[in-house]
C-alpha cells in the first residue's frame, strides 16, 4: 500500500490529538485538538516557546508516547493502536531520531553507536559494516569511526547521532533541537547536513527548534503555543 495514499497524501497525519499529563491530582493539558499533516519529502520546522509541547508532539509522531485522545498516523500505520512491542518494531523500521544532547553510548565507538539500530535487523556483520561506513561517509566522519564520543567535538558527536538516525534508511527523521547544544559554526554544518538529506535523498524531516536561523533552513515552519499549532509565529 502506498504510504501517502493511506494517509490522504500525507506521510504524517495528526488529528484531534489531545495529550494530558497527570501530575499528582492535577491534569496538565499539553496538546489540545491538534491537527498536523506532513507530506513525504517535507522538511518541517516546529517552533514554539519552552513548555509549549513541541517535544511531546515529536514523541507522539515518533511513537515514543501515546496521545490521550485523537489519531496519530505515520506511513500508513495508526500508532495509537499499536502494542508496545509492535511500536518498537515500527520505530526501528520507520523512524530515525536525532537528539539535542546527541545521546550516544559513551562506551561505544562512533561506528558501534551508528551500528546500534542495525543490530535489530537480519543484516550480517559485513553488511552492517557496509551500512555503517556509508552512514559515516554521509556525515563526513569516516576518519573518526573508531573514536569514542568523549574524544569527539559536539558537532562531531551530533553528526554521529545523525548517522545513527539515518543508517537504517528510515521513512522519517525526527530531530529534537539538533543544534541546540552547538556553536553557530557546528550548528550550520548540521543544518547543511539535514538540508542535504532532505533535498538530495528526499528524507522527510521534522525538526523541533527554538532557533529562527535553523527553522529558516526548513521548507515549512509551524508554531506551537498552548497546545495549538499555527502557521504564524507566536506574538
Amino acid at each position, binding site marked *: 500500500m502506498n504510504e501517502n495514499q493511506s494517509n490522504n497524501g500525507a506521510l504524517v497525519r495528526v488529528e484531534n490529538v489531545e495529550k494530558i499529563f497527570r501530575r499528582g491530582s492535577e491534569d496538565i493539558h499539553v496538546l489540545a485538538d491538534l491537527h498536523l499533516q506532513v507530506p513525504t519529502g517535507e522538511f518541517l520546522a516546529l517552533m514554539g516557546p519552552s513548555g509549549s509541547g513541541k517535544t511531546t508532539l515529536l514523541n507522539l509522531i515518533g511513537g515514543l508516547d501515546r496521545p490521550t485522545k485523537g489519531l496519530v498516523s505515520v506511513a500508513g500505520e495508526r500508532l495509537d493502536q499499536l502494542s508496545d512491542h509492535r511500536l*518498537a518494531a515500527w520505530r526501528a523500521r520507520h523512524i530515525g531520531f536525532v537528539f539535542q544532547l546527541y545521546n550516544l*553510548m559513551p562506551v*561505544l565507538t562512533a561506528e558501534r553507536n551508528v551500528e*546500534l*539500530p542495525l*543490530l535489530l535487523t537480519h543484516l550480517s556483520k559485513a553488511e552492517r559494516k557496509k551500512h555503517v561506513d556509508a552512514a559515516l561517509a*554521509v556525515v563526513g566522519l569516516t576518519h573518526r569511526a573508531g573514536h569514542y564520543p568523549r574524544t569527539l567535538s559536539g558537532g562531531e558527536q551530533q553528526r554521529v547521532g545523525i548517522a545513527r538516525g539515518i543508517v*537504517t534508511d528510515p521513512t522519517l527523521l525526527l530531530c529534537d533541537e539538533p543544534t541546540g547544544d552547538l556553536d553557530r559554526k557546528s550548528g550550520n554544518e548540521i543544518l547543511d547536513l539535514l538540508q542535504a538529506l532532505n533535498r538530495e*535523498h528526499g528524507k522527510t524531516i521534522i525538526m523541533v527548534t527554538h532557533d529562527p536561523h535553523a527553522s529558516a533552513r526548513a521548507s515549512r515552519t509551524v508554531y506551537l503555543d498552548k497546545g495549538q499549532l499555527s502557521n504564524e509565529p507566536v506574538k
Partner: protein
Amino acid sequence: MLGRWSIEFTRKCVRPFHHSITPSLHHPVFPVKFFHLIWCNLKRKKLRTSLTLLSIVVAFILFGFLSAIQQALVGGVEMAGADRLSVRQKVSIINLLPISYEARIERIPGVDFATHQTWFGGIYQDPKNFFMQNPVEPEKFFKIHPEIILPPEQMKAWLATRTGAIVGRRTADRFHWKIGDRIPIQSPIWGADRTWEFDIVGIYDGAKKGTDTTWMLFRYDYFDEARRWGKGQIGWFTIRIKDPSQAAEVAKRVDAEFENSPTETKTEPEGAFIQGYASQIGNIVFIVAAILGMVFFTILLVAGNTMAQAVRERTGELGVLKAIGFTNGQVMALVLAESCLLAVIGGAVGLALARAVTPVVADKLAGLLPMFFLPTHALFTGFSLSVALGLVTGIFPALQAMRLRVADALRRM
C-alpha cells in the same frame, strides 16, 4: 562534499539493502551480536565491576572448598556398596565384637559372606602423619571391595608374607614408600611399648575417582597373634548380601541373632555406617549449606546493588535503545545478560581457582580427609549457581529497565 557521499550512500548502499533491513525482533536465542554492547557496558565502571567480580570469585572459591570438604566427609557414602552391610557393637563403634560372630553371620539367610576390620590407630614417625591402618582378611577383603585394585602378583606376595602390608597409592606417594620397604609403626591402642614392623608387598589403586587410596592394610592373623590384648576380637564386620533389596530384612536378622547376648550388634547399610562417622561432627550437609547460603546472600546483595546502580545510571541510554527500536523484552534481556555474564565470569574463575588449589590442599590433608577433592558434579552445580546468581541479581534491575517509559527515560539523559 555532500553531493559526492550522498549519491554513493543512496545508490550503492542503502537502496540495495532497503528490503533487507526490516527489523527482526523475534530472535530464537539472544543473538551473539549484542555481546559487544553487553561487554562494553560491563566495563563501564571498571573498579566497581572488578570489586563485584572479586567478591563473586571469592564466593565461588569458598563454594569449591566447602564442596571438597563435604565430599571428603560424606563422599564415602556415595562410594558405599549397596550390597554391603556393616555390623558393629550396639553400644559404640569402639567396643569390639568376637570374631566367632563371623561364622554365625554367614549362616544367616540372605548373607553371602562376612569379613572384618579393626581400628589399628598406628603412628608413623609423627602423630601428624595420620592415615588409616586396618588388619583385614586379604582374600575376603578384596572380594567384598572390588573397587580396590591390586596386581595379582602383589596379592600373592601378601598372602605369602605374614608381616606383609599393602598401601594405597596416595599414602605410598606421600611417604615415598615402595615395595620392599619395611615400615615401623607404633600403636598406642595395641601396645605403646613396642614397634610393629610391616613389609610393603603391594600398592593398590582405586577403580574409580573418589576411592580412598590412603589406607594401609595388613593381615589379621599377624595382628591377632602379636597384639597384647583383645585376642579373638575385631572392630566391625562387613557383610555382602545376596540381594540388595533385602538389606533391611537381613540387617534385622543379624541383630536378632545376637539379641540378649553380652555383645549385641547394630547392623546398617555401609552408607549409613559411614554417614554415622561423619555425623559425629554434625550435619555436614546442613553446615555447608548454611555457610554457603550466608555467603551467597551477601553476594546477592553486592552484585544486585551493582546492577541496580548500573541501570539507574544509564536510564537515559536505555531510553535511547528503546527509541531506536529495542523492545522492552530486549532491553530486559540486555540487563539480565549483563548480570549473568558478570556472575558466570566470577563463578568460572572462582571454580577454576578452587579446582587448581584443592589438589595442593588435598596433599596437606591426605591423612585427615583422604577424599578431599572437588567433584565434577560440584563444578556443574557451581556453574548453575552462577547463572542463578546472575538471574536473581539482574531480574529486578531488568524489570525496572523493561518498564521504563521511553519519553521519561530520555528526559533523564
